[in-house]
């Protein structure tokens, strides 16, 4: 039917070039013009389909029409209440009159009640004794006639007065309707062949692509969502920062030891044994295994001596040394523990030790920085990004574990100005242009600097990292020559990631409560 109707529209247009009023059309299979609203809705479907192919254009007109209520429809079928009352009564003198009670039984309560009054008023019936009789032999049921007209045309020639009366009697209701004026579209043709939606292999083989018409593509709609995997947003930022280090010539340090000893995590770094960071409240200690094997004895001795009694130009902490404290196993609180271990290895040749695999050694750093005889020192630039642990109570900005980004540069005669200059470049590569440096305290670096970046959104300076030059009390016991200086700096990976993705609660970034959908929809990272 739909296609026949479309064909009718096209044929009519072909013949008349315009359809002024779609109510004049007769829908195929029907006998009368499509004056009802239902018919117009059917026609609209056909028009829209043709419009999408640009075969036609149309204008919409609105009108008001009337439709019958169920009671009105009943009247069209059975006659008005008064007509039904009249029909139920005997003609005057032609039988015994019917009492109102009998009438109710015959035509029903409602009809009897409404119909009696109107039939009297119309002068169709009269009283005889206790009963009722017809007093005319023929009646004209105007209500039924009017409603019939409304049912077929939606309106009444007689006009608004009668319509108003019928509305009051709840026999009809008003309804908004539409009708249309149709004209030819840019692709007008009388053929209703369906346009193609896509180019297919069949078209290519048969060559029909040449003659086919194609449905207009909706460029406003979104494409089909892709299926596929996703990498975690924090690790996308990790990769970006790793790349910054690699671009700047850094070698990645092994950090595969979450478990550290008090010695490597603190003592080797010249962190005093009574430092608050070593408290049970801040650091996870192990119950099993509990104690580390001793480090290399000479080095251990040098470290414990510089703490307890001083040396290498330092007074030391002059506090009692506890071997127990030093050998306690713990979860590393910073990756600087790994860096300390790496620096100790870097100094092996300076200590006069043979380094395994020396022959095939890959020159990470150039060997020609010293003026004097080769003391075995090679410069190094090292980095790591890995997990660290703090015995914290979790909240929106703290987890018991997070990732630390750490960089180390070791060379002769490095200066504080070099460190600050380097930090400016490093942070610039992370997209942070405006930085400033605050003197700070850190037990293993001197000078120590906190790095502050201006946050344009927050309109204030925020701390983004820590840096410093490792203390001689840390480097010289390892065996480094006095002129070797080592820069170190660290920042958390979570913080720049939270800023990058506008995340306020760290638990929505790391841990099992993270939404998988969130991971799937995290944008790529380009600093």
């Amino acid at each position, binding site marked *: 039917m739909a296609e026949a109707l479309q064909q009718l529209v096209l044929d009519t247009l072909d013949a008349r070039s315009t359809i002024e009023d779609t109510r004049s059309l007769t829908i195929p299979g029907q006998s009368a013009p499509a004056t009802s609203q239902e018919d117009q809705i059917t026609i609209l479907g056909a028009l829209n389909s043709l419009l999408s192919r640009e075969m036609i254009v149309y204008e919409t007109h609105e009108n008001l029409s009337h439709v019958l209520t169920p009671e009105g429809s009943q009247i069209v079928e059975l006659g008005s209440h008064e007509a039904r009352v009249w029909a139920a009564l005997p003609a005057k003198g032609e039988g015994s009159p019917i009492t109102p009670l009998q009438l109710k039984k015959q035509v029903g309560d409602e009809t009897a009640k409404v119909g009696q009054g109107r039939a009297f008023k119309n002068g169709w019936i009269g009283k005889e004794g206790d009963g009722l009789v017809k007093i005319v032999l023929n009646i004209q049921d105007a209500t039924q006639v009017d409603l019939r007209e409304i049912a077929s045309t939606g309106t009444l020639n007689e006009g608004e007065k009668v319509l108003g009366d019928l509305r009051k009697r709840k026999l009809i209701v008003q309804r908004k309707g539409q009708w249309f004026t149709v004209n030819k579209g840019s692709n007008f043709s009388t053929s209703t062949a369906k346009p193609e939606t896509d180019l297919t292999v069949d078209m290519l083989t048969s060559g029909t692509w040449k003659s086919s018409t194609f449905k207009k593509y909706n460029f406003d709609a979104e494409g089909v969502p892709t299926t*596929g*995997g*996703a990498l*975690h947003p924090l*690790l996308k930022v990790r990769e970006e920062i*790793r790349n910054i280090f*690699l671009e700047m*010539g850094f*070698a*990645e340090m*092994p950090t595969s030891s*979450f*478990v550290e*000893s008090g010695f490597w995590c603190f003592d080797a770094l010249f962190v005093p044994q009574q430092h608050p960071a070593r408290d049970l409240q801040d650091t*996870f*200690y192990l*119950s*099993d*295994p509990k104690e*580390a094997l*001793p480090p290399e004895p000479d080095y251990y001795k040098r470290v414990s001596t510089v703490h307890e009694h001083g040396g290498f130009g*330092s007074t030391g902490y002059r506090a009692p040394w506890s071997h127990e404290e030093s050998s306690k196993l713990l*979860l590393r609180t910073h990756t600087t523990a790994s860096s300390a271990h790496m620096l100790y*290895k*870097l100094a*092996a040749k300076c200590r006069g030790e043979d380094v395994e695999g020396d022959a095939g*050694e890959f020159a990470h750093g150039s060997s020609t*920085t010293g003026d004097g005889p080769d003391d075995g020192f090679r410069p190094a630039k090292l980095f790591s990004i890995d997990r660290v*642990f703090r*015995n914290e*109570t979790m909240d929106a900005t703290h987890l*018991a*574990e997070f990732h630390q980004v750490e960089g180390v*540069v*070791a*060379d002769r005669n*490095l*200066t504080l100005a*070099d460190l*600050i*200059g*380097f930090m*400016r470049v490093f942070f610039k590569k992370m997209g942070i242009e405006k930085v*400033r*440096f*605050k*003197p*700070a*305290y850190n037990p293993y670096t*001197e000078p120590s600097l906190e790095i502050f970046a201006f946050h344009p959104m927050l309109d204030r300076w925020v701390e983004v990292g820590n840096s410093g030059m490792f*203390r001689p009390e840390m480097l010289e016991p390892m065996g480094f020559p006095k002129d070797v*200086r080592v*820069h170190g700096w660290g920042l958390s990976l979570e913080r720049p990631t939270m800023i990058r993705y506008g995340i306020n609660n760290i638990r929505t970034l*790391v841990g*099992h409560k*993270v*939404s*998988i959908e969130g*991971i*799937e929809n995290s944008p790529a990272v380009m600093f």
Partner: protein
Amino acid sequence: MPTISVDKADLWERLGQEFSTEEFDQLLFEYGLELDEDTTAEVEAAIKAGLPAERPQLKIEVPANRYDLVCIEGIARALRIFLQKAEPPQYRLVYPPGGESEILTMTISPEVKKVRPLFACAILRNVKFTPRSYASFIDLQDKLHQNIGRRRQLVSIGTHDLDTLKAPFRYEAQPPKDIKFVPLNKDTAYTAEELMTVYESDKHLSKYLHIIRDSPVYPIIYDSMDRVLSMPPIINSEHSKITLNTRNIFIDVTATDQTKLDIVVNIVATLFSEYCEDPYTIEPVKIILPDGSTRISPDLSERHTTARASYVNSCTGLNLSASEVSTLLQRMALRSTVSPSNPDELLVRIPATRPDIFHECDIMEDAAIAYGFNKLPHKFPATSTVAQPLAISKLSDIVRQEWALAGWVEVLPLILCSHEENFEFLNHVDDAKTAVKIANPKSLEFQVVRTTLLPGLLKTIRENRSHALPIKIFETADVVFKDTSRERQARNVRHAAAVWCNKTAGFEIVHGMLNRAMKMLEIPLIGNTDQKAETGYYIKESTDPVYFPGRAATIYYRPPPAKGGNTSTNIKEGMKTALYAQCDMEIGSLGILHPTVLANFEIGYPCSALEFTLEPFKKNMNKIWTNDD
């Protein structure tokens, strides 16, 4: 880092100038302090609303090693000197009018060795307190107790109205039942034994009881009339308490650590000596030690050390003369003069207030702070090196990429988990040889370091119930195993794991993930009865209670034979292949998760899991100077 609250108007008065918040923030920043908060706006709002308001305060964060900055007296003194509005003060020991012979004495009993061996003291004469300076004095003691004193464990301070006492004094240790006095803010006398019970319910003091409770003797300080001054580190006596009207103050400090003892007595005495009629003077006390020797306390002598301008320059990147460095150091309260014998060398005098200076590098840092970190020339290290990633990182990234390309989502659960999640929930028994355990977790979530990636993946699925099925997630990260052969008694191992969750369990799906990873790593699939293949991997049915019976398999890997072996050609073919198979190692497992495991993790859908170690597939990277961890 301690945060110090100072009265704003008082500070401006001491600095002789008012600052805007920005100016003051900048000044503190340069010095290495941080302005946390300025309560002025808050106070003004309270006044406007007719509410009671305190005077505006500035909250300042000070570095943890600068005990001389933990009160307004110290901060104002340091900033005045930094702003070149004052010279560093000269702290002096001043004997009583009658000279050294009139010095008060304190005799230390040998018994104190058993509980709190070290003692120091000092006297401030003709002090005039105001309510605010009095409050600051009390607050300073509290700050020192908490920080350097490690909650009175290492050091504690008592202060007394000297005019209520009569020297000579004695520092002794006695059984608690023999000690009896009226403690501060009480009106009846208690024995030390009783005090331990009385203070049990005291919110403030109960924290310190453990320091001496179990000792057979308690430390106690008496005057010549056997009146108690204090019972360190718990409480002073009511008798000798200081008030706003106290003019002569006796400070006692007891400790278990000599260095910290000296620091604390010097800080308290020097900072508050500014309120003495003769500012910056301190009256010493003669301490008679158990062996009969004596010493004068406090020891305020300056430490003499040297610093070279060349060293300062080589560390900072500046080019300053020794006298320029000296001027910078003066602003940091370090007096120095250029050595008469060496124009590069400065003779530096470190005052008793600066125990944070250990080494020439600390002096160098002070010079750099005075110069201004942000004014240093822009330089860049010339260090030339070759970049290199870690082998394990590269390997891990390959698996991550390939699995993500295969349509799986990477998740990042925590490394710490509960004992149950790592063992019982997976139907595994803890053999006590595998997992590293934490002694002091604040929550049950952090009892062990995971030995498998499964708990985190399963918890992630549990928390993502609303995600459309199937859920396909993976993680490549470290687990930790005990390892008694290593210094740290543990080792990290890089694992790769994936879990599939759908209406059907899908063993073949995770199996496909294994095949895909191996294909990308160019590890051939070999038959599980193949003895001849040189290298490859295969899976073999196994039983593991974490998996559904009959739907579990172990993954085996046969590493390639070591290159350069010279014996293989001489061995018969059969022998050789037998050797290959001998090297097969278990690298992981896969299977349909057991319904009880799913129930433990509150997952309502069937799941299959895959987990294996990546360690055998690490490529040897170029050696730099070491290639192992």
